[in-house]
Protein backbone atom coordinates (compact mmCIF):
# COMPACT_ATOMS: atom_id res chain seq x y z
CA UNK A 1 0.00 0.00 0.00
CA UNK A 2 2.93 2.30 -0.45
CA UNK A 3 2.18 5.44 1.56
CA UNK A 4 3.88 5.97 4.87
CA UNK A 5 1.19 6.17 7.50
CA UNK A 6 1.20 9.09 9.92
CA UNK A 7 -0.28 8.91 13.39
CA UNK A 8 -3.67 7.36 12.77
CA UNK A 9 -6.02 6.63 15.71
CA UNK A 10 -7.88 4.11 13.54
CA UNK A 11 -4.71 2.08 13.20
CA UNK A 12 -4.40 2.03 17.00
CA UNK A 13 -7.98 0.77 17.22
CA UNK A 14 -7.38 -1.87 14.57
CA UNK A 15 -4.24 -3.05 16.36
CA UNK A 16 -6.33 -3.43 19.50
CA UNK A 17 -8.86 -5.44 17.53
CA UNK A 18 -5.99 -7.64 16.35
CA UNK A 19 -5.11 -8.21 19.99
CA UNK A 20 -8.66 -9.39 20.70
CA UNK A 21 -10.45 -6.20 21.77
CA UNK A 22 -13.76 -6.41 19.90
CA UNK A 23 -15.08 -3.22 21.46
CA UNK A 24 -12.48 -1.30 19.45
CA UNK A 25 -14.06 -2.64 16.30
CA UNK A 26 -17.40 -1.29 17.50
CA UNK A 27 -15.73 2.12 17.70
CA UNK A 28 -14.41 1.73 14.14
CA UNK A 29 -17.85 0.68 12.95
CA UNK A 30 -19.53 3.66 14.60
CA UNK A 31 -16.91 6.00 13.22
CA UNK A 32 -16.85 4.86 9.60
CA UNK A 33 -20.10 3.09 8.76
CA UNK A 34 -21.82 6.29 7.58
CA UNK A 35 -18.90 7.27 5.35
CA UNK A 36 -18.68 3.80 3.82
CA UNK A 37 -22.43 3.40 3.31
CA UNK A 38 -22.73 6.89 1.79
CA UNK A 39 -19.78 6.29 -0.53
CA UNK A 40 -21.27 3.00 -1.66
CA UNK A 41 -24.75 4.51 -1.90
CA UNK A 42 -23.45 7.11 -4.34
CA UNK A 43 -21.41 4.52 -6.21
CA UNK A 44 -24.12 1.89 -6.71
CA UNK A 45 -27.14 4.22 -6.29
CA UNK A 46 -29.12 1.68 -4.30
CA UNK A 47 -29.68 1.95 -0.55
CA UNK A 48 -30.17 -1.75 0.23
CA UNK A 49 -27.20 -2.83 -1.85
CA UNK A 50 -24.97 -0.13 -0.39
CA UNK A 51 -25.67 -1.35 3.17
CA UNK A 52 -25.08 -4.93 2.12
CA UNK A 53 -21.76 -4.04 0.49
CA UNK A 54 -20.78 -1.93 3.51
CA UNK A 55 -21.41 -4.95 5.73
CA UNK A 56 -19.10 -6.95 3.48
CA UNK A 57 -16.43 -4.23 3.69
CA UNK A 58 -16.45 -4.35 7.49
CA UNK A 59 -16.58 -8.14 7.52
CA UNK A 60 -13.48 -8.25 5.34
CA UNK A 61 -11.70 -5.80 7.60
CA UNK A 62 -12.75 -7.78 10.67
CA UNK A 63 -11.78 -11.11 9.14
CA UNK A 64 -8.29 -9.90 8.34
CA UNK A 65 -7.71 -8.59 11.87
CA UNK A 66 -5.34 -11.41 12.81
CA UNK A 67 -2.97 -10.61 9.95
CA UNK A 68 -3.46 -6.84 10.04
CA UNK A 69 -0.32 -4.77 9.41
CA UNK A 70 -0.60 -0.97 9.34
CA UNK A 71 1.01 -0.30 5.96
CA UNK A 72 -1.36 2.54 4.97
CA UNK A 73 -3.96 4.78 6.55
CA UNK A 74 -6.87 2.74 7.80
CA UNK A 75 -9.43 4.68 5.78
CA UNK A 76 -7.39 4.28 2.60
CA UNK A 77 -7.35 0.53 3.10
CA UNK A 78 -11.06 0.45 3.95
CA UNK A 79 -12.07 2.54 0.94
CA UNK A 80 -9.90 0.39 -1.27
CA UNK A 81 -11.97 -2.61 -0.22
CA UNK A 82 -15.19 -0.61 -0.65
CA UNK A 83 -14.20 0.55 -4.13
CA UNK A 84 -13.24 -2.97 -5.14
CA UNK A 85 -16.61 -4.34 -4.00
CA UNK A 86 -18.51 -1.51 -5.68
CA UNK A 87 -16.70 -2.08 -8.99
CA UNK A 88 -17.51 -5.80 -8.82
CA UNK A 89 -21.16 -5.13 -8.04
CA UNK A 90 -21.43 -2.61 -10.88
CA UNK A 91 -19.84 -5.09 -13.26
CA UNK A 92 -22.31 -7.81 -12.26
CA UNK A 93 -25.19 -5.34 -12.45
CA UNK A 94 -24.12 -4.26 -15.92
CA UNK A 95 -24.09 -7.89 -17.05
CA UNK A 96 -27.52 -8.45 -15.53
CA UNK A 97 -28.92 -5.36 -17.22
CA UNK A 98 -27.50 -6.50 -20.53
CA UNK A 99 -29.31 -9.79 -20.02
CA UNK A 100 -32.52 -7.97 -19.07
CA UNK A 101 -32.24 -5.86 -22.21
CA UNK A 102 -31.94 -9.03 -24.24
CA UNK A 103 -35.04 -10.37 -22.52
CA UNK A 104 -36.89 -7.12 -23.24
CA UNK A 105 -36.01 -7.38 -26.89
CA UNK A 106 -37.60 -10.80 -26.87
CA UNK A 107 -40.93 -9.18 -26.01
CA UNK A 108 -40.77 -8.86 -22.25
CA UNK A 109 -42.37 -5.50 -21.52
CA UNK A 110 -40.86 -4.80 -18.08
CA UNK A 111 -40.44 -1.17 -17.00
CA UNK A 112 -36.91 0.25 -16.70
CA UNK A 113 -35.22 -0.22 -13.33
CA UNK A 114 -36.21 2.71 -11.13
CA UNK A 115 -34.54 4.19 -8.11
CA UNK A 116 -36.51 3.65 -4.95
CA UNK A 117 -37.86 7.20 -4.54
CA UNK A 118 -41.54 7.45 -3.73
CA UNK A 119 -43.91 9.69 -5.71
CA UNK A 120 -43.76 13.23 -4.32
CA UNK A 121 -46.84 14.82 -2.87
CA UNK A 122 -46.09 18.53 -3.40
CA UNK A 123 -44.49 20.53 -6.19
CA UNK A 124 -41.43 21.54 -4.17
CA UNK A 125 -40.76 18.01 -3.28
CA UNK A 126 -41.12 17.07 -6.92
CA UNK A 127 -38.65 19.72 -7.94
CA UNK A 128 -36.22 18.68 -5.26
CA UNK A 129 -36.44 15.07 -6.36
CA UNK A 130 -35.99 16.07 -9.98
CA UNK A 131 -32.83 17.97 -9.07
CA UNK A 132 -31.54 15.06 -7.04
CA UNK A 133 -32.29 12.72 -9.88
CA UNK A 134 -30.34 14.98 -12.20
CA UNK A 135 -27.36 14.90 -9.85
CA UNK A 136 -27.59 11.13 -9.44
CA UNK A 137 -27.80 10.69 -13.20
CA UNK A 138 -24.80 12.95 -13.76
CA UNK A 139 -22.77 10.91 -11.28
CA UNK A 140 -24.18 7.64 -12.52
CA UNK A 141 -23.17 8.39 -16.09
CA UNK A 142 -19.52 8.83 -15.15
CA UNK A 143 -17.25 5.85 -15.82
CA UNK A 144 -16.80 3.86 -12.61
CA UNK A 145 -13.25 4.92 -11.88
CA UNK A 146 -14.04 8.60 -12.46
CA UNK A 147 -17.12 8.23 -10.27
CA UNK A 148 -15.12 6.70 -7.43
CA UNK A 149 -12.46 9.41 -7.74
CA UNK A 150 -15.04 12.21 -7.61
CA UNK A 151 -16.88 10.71 -4.63
CA UNK A 152 -13.67 10.29 -2.67
CA UNK A 153 -12.45 13.77 -3.63
CA UNK A 154 -15.72 15.61 -3.12
CA UNK A 155 -17.42 13.85 -0.23
CA UNK A 156 -14.51 12.21 1.63
CA UNK A 157 -12.07 15.06 0.98
CA UNK A 158 -9.31 12.58 0.25
CA UNK A 159 -6.10 13.93 -1.22
CA UNK A 160 -4.76 12.78 -4.57
CA UNK A 161 -2.24 10.39 -3.01
CA UNK A 162 -4.93 8.61 -1.00
CA UNK A 163 -7.22 8.33 -4.00
CA UNK A 164 -4.30 7.02 -6.06
CA UNK A 165 -3.63 4.26 -3.52
CA UNK A 166 -7.31 3.40 -3.30
CA UNK A 167 -7.73 3.19 -7.07
CA UNK A 168 -4.33 1.59 -7.59
CA UNK A 169 -3.07 4.20 -10.04
CA UNK A 170 -0.67 7.16 -10.11
CA UNK A 171 -1.43 10.61 -8.71
CA UNK A 172 -1.25 12.14 -12.16
CA UNK A 173 -3.77 9.56 -13.37
CA UNK A 174 -6.07 10.59 -10.50
CA UNK A 175 -5.75 14.26 -11.45
CA UNK A 176 -6.57 13.39 -15.02
CA UNK A 177 -9.55 11.25 -13.94
CA UNK A 178 -10.87 14.06 -11.75
CA UNK A 179 -10.40 16.69 -14.39
CA UNK A 180 -12.35 14.68 -16.95
CA UNK A 181 -15.03 13.77 -14.42
CA UNK A 182 -15.58 17.35 -13.28
CA UNK A 183 -15.55 18.50 -16.86
CA UNK A 184 -18.47 16.18 -17.53
CA UNK A 185 -20.25 17.20 -14.30
CA UNK A 186 -19.82 20.90 -15.06
CA UNK A 187 -21.50 20.31 -18.40
CA UNK A 188 -24.46 18.60 -16.75
CA UNK A 189 -24.81 20.43 -13.43
CA UNK A 190 -23.58 23.99 -13.87
CA UNK A 191 -27.06 25.15 -14.99
CA UNK A 192 -28.49 24.06 -11.62
CA UNK A 193 -26.59 26.72 -9.75
CA UNK A 194 -27.68 29.32 -12.32
CA UNK A 195 -31.28 28.19 -11.78
CA UNK A 196 -30.92 28.71 -8.04
CA UNK A 197 -29.45 32.17 -8.49
CA UNK A 198 -32.28 33.37 -10.80
Amino acid at each position, binding site marked *: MGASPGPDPDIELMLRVRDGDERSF*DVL*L*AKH*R*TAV*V*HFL*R*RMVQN*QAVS*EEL*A*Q*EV*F*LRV*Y*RSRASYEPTARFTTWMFRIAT*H*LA*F*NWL*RDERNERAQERLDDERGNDLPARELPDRAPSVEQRMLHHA*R*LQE*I*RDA*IGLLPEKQRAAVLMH*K*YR*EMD*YAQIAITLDCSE*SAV*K*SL*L*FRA*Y*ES*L*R*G*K*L*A*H*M*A*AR*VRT
Partner: protein
Amino acid sequence: MKQQDFPRNNSADNSGEGKCPLLSEETPAALLDFAAGRLDGICAEQLARHSAHCEACADFIAGQAAAWSALDEWEIEPVSSAFNRRFWARAAELDRIPWYLRLADAVRFGGWKPAIPVAAAVLVIAAGFLMDHRDAVRTTRTGAGNGVSVIEVDQVERSLDDIQLLKQFDTTVTDAATSSTRM
Protein backbone atom coordinates in the same frame (compact mmCIF):
# COMPACT_ATOMS: atom_id res chain seq x y z
CA MET B 1 -14.80 22.36 -21.57
CA LYS B 2 -11.61 21.10 -23.14
CA GLN B 3 -8.20 22.67 -22.89
CA GLN B 4 -8.07 23.40 -26.60
CA ASP B 5 -11.43 25.20 -26.36
CA PHE B 6 -9.68 28.09 -24.67
CA PRO B 7 -8.02 30.74 -26.79
CA ARG B 8 -4.29 30.12 -26.97
CA ASN B 9 -3.53 33.82 -27.10
CA ASN B 10 -5.41 34.56 -23.95
CA SER B 11 -4.47 37.93 -22.58
CA ALA B 12 -3.74 36.38 -19.18
CA ASP B 13 -0.83 34.52 -20.70
CA ASN B 14 1.03 37.75 -21.17
CA SER B 15 -0.40 39.61 -18.25
CA GLY B 16 2.43 38.78 -15.91
CA GLU B 17 0.07 36.73 -13.69
CA GLY B 18 1.79 33.44 -14.50
CA LYS B 19 1.10 30.75 -17.08
CA CYS B 20 -2.58 29.85 -17.44
CA PRO B 21 -3.11 26.45 -15.75
CA LEU B 22 -5.68 25.54 -18.40
CA LEU B 23 -3.05 25.90 -21.11
CA SER B 24 -0.32 24.03 -19.29
CA GLU B 25 0.70 20.52 -20.23
CA GLU B 26 -0.27 19.12 -16.83
CA THR B 27 -3.84 18.65 -15.74
CA PRO B 28 -4.90 21.87 -14.04
CA ALA B 29 -5.66 20.18 -10.73
CA ALA B 30 -4.80 23.41 -8.96
CA LEU B 31 -7.91 25.01 -10.41
CA LEU B 32 -10.06 22.16 -9.09
CA ASP B 33 -8.57 22.64 -5.63
CA PHE B 34 -8.97 26.40 -5.90
CA ALA B 35 -12.65 26.10 -6.87
CA ALA B 36 -13.16 23.69 -3.97
CA GLY B 37 -11.46 26.10 -1.57
CA ARG B 38 -8.75 23.57 -0.80
CA LEU B 39 -5.76 25.48 -2.09
CA ASP B 40 -3.44 27.09 0.41
CA GLY B 41 -2.15 30.66 0.65
CA ILE B 42 0.27 31.67 -2.08
CA CYS B 43 -1.07 29.38 -4.80
CA ALA B 44 -4.63 30.49 -4.07
CA GLU B 45 -3.60 34.14 -4.26
CA GLN B 46 -1.79 33.57 -7.55
CA LEU B 47 -4.78 31.82 -9.06
CA ALA B 48 -7.18 34.47 -7.80
CA ARG B 49 -5.01 37.15 -9.42
CA HIS B 50 -4.74 35.10 -12.59
CA SER B 51 -8.46 34.33 -12.89
CA ALA B 52 -9.28 38.02 -12.46
CA HIS B 53 -7.64 38.55 -15.85
CA CYS B 54 -8.26 35.17 -17.49
CA GLU B 55 -11.81 34.70 -18.73
CA ALA B 56 -11.32 30.99 -19.40
CA CYS B 57 -10.12 30.30 -15.86
CA ALA B 58 -12.87 32.48 -14.39
CA ASP B 59 -15.47 30.48 -16.34
CA PHE B 60 -13.87 27.23 -15.29
CA ILE B 61 -13.89 28.21 -11.62
CA ALA B 62 -17.51 29.44 -11.77
CA GLY B 63 -18.66 26.26 -13.51
CA GLN B 64 -16.74 24.09 -11.10
CA ALA B 65 -18.16 25.92 -8.08
CA ALA B 66 -21.68 25.49 -9.50
CA ALA B 67 -21.21 21.76 -10.06
CA TRP B 68 -19.64 21.51 -6.61
CA SER B 69 -22.61 23.16 -4.90
CA ALA B 70 -25.05 21.00 -6.89
CA LEU B 71 -23.24 17.92 -5.60
CA ASP B 72 -23.65 19.26 -2.06
CA GLU B 73 -27.41 18.87 -2.45
CA TRP B 74 -27.11 15.12 -2.72
CA GLU B 75 -27.71 13.98 0.79
CA ILE B 76 -27.97 10.34 1.68
CA GLU B 77 -30.51 8.62 3.90
CA PRO B 78 -29.16 7.72 7.35
CA VAL B 79 -27.68 4.28 7.83
CA SER B 80 -30.16 1.79 9.25
CA SER B 81 -30.05 1.51 13.03
CA ALA B 82 -29.61 -2.24 12.86
CA PHE B 83 -26.35 -1.96 10.93
CA ASN B 84 -24.03 -2.83 13.84
CA ARG B 85 -26.30 -5.59 15.16
CA ARG B 86 -26.48 -7.16 11.71
CA PHE B 87 -22.72 -6.88 11.36
CA TRP B 88 -21.99 -8.73 14.61
CA ALA B 89 -24.60 -11.38 13.78
CA ARG B 90 -22.93 -11.95 10.42
CA ALA B 91 -19.46 -11.99 11.97
CA ALA B 92 -20.58 -14.63 14.48
CA GLU B 93 -22.25 -16.62 11.73
CA LEU B 94 -19.11 -16.41 9.63
CA ASP B 95 -17.03 -17.95 12.40
CA ARG B 96 -19.27 -21.02 12.24
CA ILE B 97 -19.05 -21.41 8.45
CA PRO B 98 -16.48 -23.94 7.18
CA TRP B 99 -13.48 -22.51 5.34
CA TYR B 100 -14.48 -23.85 1.91
CA LEU B 101 -17.85 -22.09 2.04
CA ARG B 102 -16.10 -18.88 3.06
CA LEU B 103 -13.82 -19.30 0.07
CA ALA B 104 -16.85 -19.71 -2.18
CA ASP B 105 -18.28 -16.55 -0.67
CA ALA B 106 -15.07 -14.68 -1.40
CA VAL B 107 -15.26 -15.86 -5.01
CA ARG B 108 -18.89 -14.69 -5.18
CA PHE B 109 -17.83 -11.20 -4.12
CA GLY B 110 -15.25 -11.02 -6.88
CA GLY B 111 -12.23 -12.43 -5.10
CA TRP B 112 -11.68 -14.84 -7.98
CA LYS B 113 -9.46 -12.53 -9.98
CA PRO B 114 -6.28 -13.08 -7.95
CA ALA B 115 -6.99 -16.82 -8.13
CA ILE B 116 -6.37 -16.85 -11.89
CA PRO B 117 -2.60 -16.14 -11.78
CA VAL B 118 -2.28 -18.43 -8.74
CA ALA B 119 -4.08 -21.23 -10.58
CA ALA B 120 -1.96 -20.61 -13.68
CA ALA B 121 1.22 -20.75 -11.59
CA VAL B 122 0.10 -23.99 -9.93
CA LEU B 123 -0.68 -25.49 -13.35
CA VAL B 124 2.72 -24.51 -14.74
CA ILE B 125 4.52 -25.95 -11.70
CA ALA B 126 2.45 -29.14 -11.87
CA ALA B 127 3.07 -29.48 -15.61
CA GLY B 128 6.79 -28.92 -15.12
CA PHE B 129 6.91 -31.46 -12.32
CA LEU B 130 4.99 -34.03 -14.38
CA MET B 131 7.19 -33.53 -17.42
CA ASP B 132 10.27 -33.87 -15.27
CA HIS B 133 8.86 -36.91 -13.58
CA ARG B 134 7.77 -38.50 -16.88
CA ASP B 135 11.29 -38.12 -18.28
CA ALA B 136 12.67 -39.88 -15.23
CA VAL B 137 10.15 -42.72 -15.59
CA ARG B 138 10.90 -43.01 -19.31
CA THR B 139 14.66 -43.20 -18.62
CA THR B 140 14.16 -45.87 -15.99
CA ARG B 141 11.84 -47.85 -18.24
CA THR B 142 14.21 -47.60 -21.23
CA GLY B 143 17.16 -48.60 -19.09
CA ALA B 144 15.29 -51.58 -17.62
CA GLY B 145 14.12 -52.73 -21.08
CA ASN B 146 17.66 -52.80 -22.50
CA GLY B 147 18.93 -54.70 -19.45
CA VAL B 148 16.31 -57.43 -19.84
CA SER B 149 17.00 -57.87 -23.55
CA VAL B 150 20.79 -58.12 -23.02
CA ILE B 151 20.32 -60.71 -20.31
CA GLU B 152 17.94 -62.67 -22.54
CA VAL B 153 20.44 -62.71 -25.43
CA ASP B 154 23.21 -63.84 -23.08
CA GLN B 155 21.01 -66.55 -21.68
CA VAL B 156 20.04 -67.79 -25.18
CA GLU B 157 23.67 -67.80 -26.29
CA ARG B 158 24.70 -69.62 -23.15
CA SER B 159 21.89 -72.14 -23.60
CA LEU B 160 22.88 -72.73 -27.23
CA ASP B 161 26.49 -73.24 -26.16
CA ASP B 162 25.34 -75.67 -23.48
CA ILE B 163 23.18 -77.60 -25.99
CA GLN B 164 26.10 -77.78 -28.40
CA LEU B 165 28.38 -78.99 -25.64
CA LEU B 166 25.83 -81.60 -24.61
CA LYS B 167 25.46 -82.70 -28.24
CA GLN B 168 29.22 -83.03 -28.59
CA PHE B 169 29.35 -84.88 -25.30
CA ASP B 170 26.46 -87.08 -26.40
CA THR B 171 28.19 -87.87 -29.74
CA THR B 172 31.43 -88.75 -27.95
CA VAL B 173 29.62 -91.05 -25.53
CA THR B 174 27.64 -92.73 -28.37
CA ASP B 175 30.82 -93.27 -30.44
CA ALA B 176 32.59 -94.80 -27.47
CA ALA B 177 29.69 -97.11 -26.75
CA THR B 178 29.50 -98.31 -30.40
CA SER B 179 33.21 -99.07 -30.59
CA SER B 180 33.11 -101.01 -27.31
CA THR B 181 30.13 -103.11 -28.57
CA ARG B 182 31.98 -103.94 -31.80
CA MET B 183 34.93 -105.13 -29.82
